[in-house]
């Protein structure tokens, strides 16, 4: 086996991959651009999320409003940013934050109903760095 050729081929392949990688590093937010308000409505039914994805992606610098609607009372906690809200059944509750720090932050429910007890991750808020 000719190592020298192998080396050149892999060098070329690597360069191609490197070149290709630069162009498409885009993380589309669920909505909006930086400095805009991103408003996402989230419905909870029967202790579960009524949406397909359990990840909400935003871009650093955006103002985020998560509007919750639940069929049961619960307390929600956005970790990291440490935002806590009380949700009453059938009433909209807003979790608002300015997404200044990047990261993947879980939103947990501290149980449902009158005898709330527990700790369950409902979804993740991902704040990606801006372009």
């Amino acid at each position: 086996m000719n190592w020298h050729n192998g080396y050149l081929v892999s060098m070329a392949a690597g360069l191609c991959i490197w070149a290709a990688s630069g162009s498409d590093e885009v993380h589309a937010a669920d909505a909006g651009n930086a400095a805009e308000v991103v408003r996402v409505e989230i419905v909870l039914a029967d202790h579960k999320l009524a949406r397909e994805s359990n990840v909400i992606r935003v871009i650093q610098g955006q103002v985020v409003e998560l509007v919750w609607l639940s069929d049961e009372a619960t307390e929600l906690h956005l970790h990291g940013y440490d935002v806590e809200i009380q949700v009453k059944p059938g009433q909209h509750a807003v979790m608002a934050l300015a997404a200044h720090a990047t990261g993947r932050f879980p939103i947990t429910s501290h149980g449902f109903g009158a005898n709330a007890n527990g700790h369950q991750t409902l979804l993740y808020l991902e704040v990606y760095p801006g372009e």
Partner: protein
Amino acid sequence: MPPSRRQLTLVLTLGMMPVMAQAHGFAQRYDLPVPLTLYITGAAAAVLLSFVVMAIFMRGQRLIGDYPRTNLLLTHVGRLLAHPLLLVLLRLFAVAILLLVVVAGLYGDPNPFKNIAPTMVWVIWWVGFAYVSGLAGNLWAVINPWKTIYEAVEKAMRWLRPGSRLGFGISYPQWLGDWPAVLLLLWFVWAELVWPASDTPANLAQAVIIYSLITWFGMFLFGKHPWLRHGEAFSLLFGLLARFAPTEIRLSGHGNCADCDVQNNTDGINCCECFEQAPRDKREWNLRPWAVGLLVERPISLSRMVFVIVMLASVTFDGLLATPLWTDLGRWMLLSEGLRPMVLILQGITGDAVAAVSTMALMLFVLGFLLIYLAFSGGMRWMLPPSVRAEVSLAVVARLFVLSLIPIALAYHLAHYLSFLMIVGQYMIPLASDPLGLGWNLFGTNLYMVNIGIVDARFVWYTSVIAIVVGHIIAVYLAHAVALRVFQDHRAVLRSQIPMLILMVGYTMLSLWILAQPVIELG
């Protein structure tokens, strides 16, 4: 088993499902997964640069030999840093921290974020000390509080009854090797990654007390230094990581260590016992190139090889625990009929089904790591020409090359914990003012709020990927250099390195892949 009980067990385990994804022992991680393109770029760079290293060795360049070094003790800064007074203060500080962790754990606030014990043990000491050991040097050997306390008792004994010696003075049996340290490391790793109570201050303090007693008992039986070399898991762990570091201690003109049981250690490199006994003018504290401490001419002991494998496997397993793959795998293990008897036995011991499944997975993972490494060592041996092959057994090959994997593990450790250390490490600021959670405010910082924006995701991504690729290249280089020293025959060297290269590329890809997975948090 009657059906009712079986159903009950199933309900119990299902009830615990949300907590399946249990990440690292304590506190949360907020890492964003490394983007796919960066992951592919990193992987491609690792493969590509491996060929560059191969090409350098193809040309027959021998880049190893006596590495350059400078004695820091001949500089003002070096003498200041190694000043006896400063060292005494550092040791006393470490003893105070050990006592603080125990007292806070036993009598402080049971909330892990209002008690200094969990942050001190899991973040500052475990994660932080690995950084210091790998990047700066073996600080642990200097400040090990168990050693300091034992020495204080020794001194007091000698003062009270001149001529007496502390301990039984049994000579350390050769066959025991580093196995005590292997067992203690397994216990520690289990506590870190699986133990449900690892962040409960009181339980943590109890574990620290038990470990302290084991350490002192070992020192009492076999002597202080033999136990530090073979039994004290953290001296071995940080010592192995510090082989990568750019500093070493050495004795000029010392020859091989004669007084201690470290065999074939020319100039007593990093041998604390000989260093302590040597006259001051023979002592060197050197700056040296990175990673040269990992080059070996002779195989390390079997027990030490297993120790390294446990170390590597556990670091990777920690990353794996936070991935969606583990969530699925763990769930499958919980529900598997075939595994149920084993799960129930372990559940009896650990007290919860998730811990039982994680314990099993950890054991299998370590075993799998060991088998894969041995298989590739076999491959390396098989690639050698028959004349060379006849001289080395599989075990010898495995014991020769295992240290060259450490840079990948160290780089992965740095990458995996970077944001964790920066964010969770900030809890030390309020905790320093109020270590027991009693409402004190010693330094006026007890209201400090953790800044989650201290590190940018992009910075973490690039640092992580670059660290892993660089670690990989150093690993490939080390393995080649060791092969050159040992096998001599140039063709044999290159052929033997093909399986090692495949193993290292696989290990690096796995490390990068874990970083590209979304963190699934404790539910």
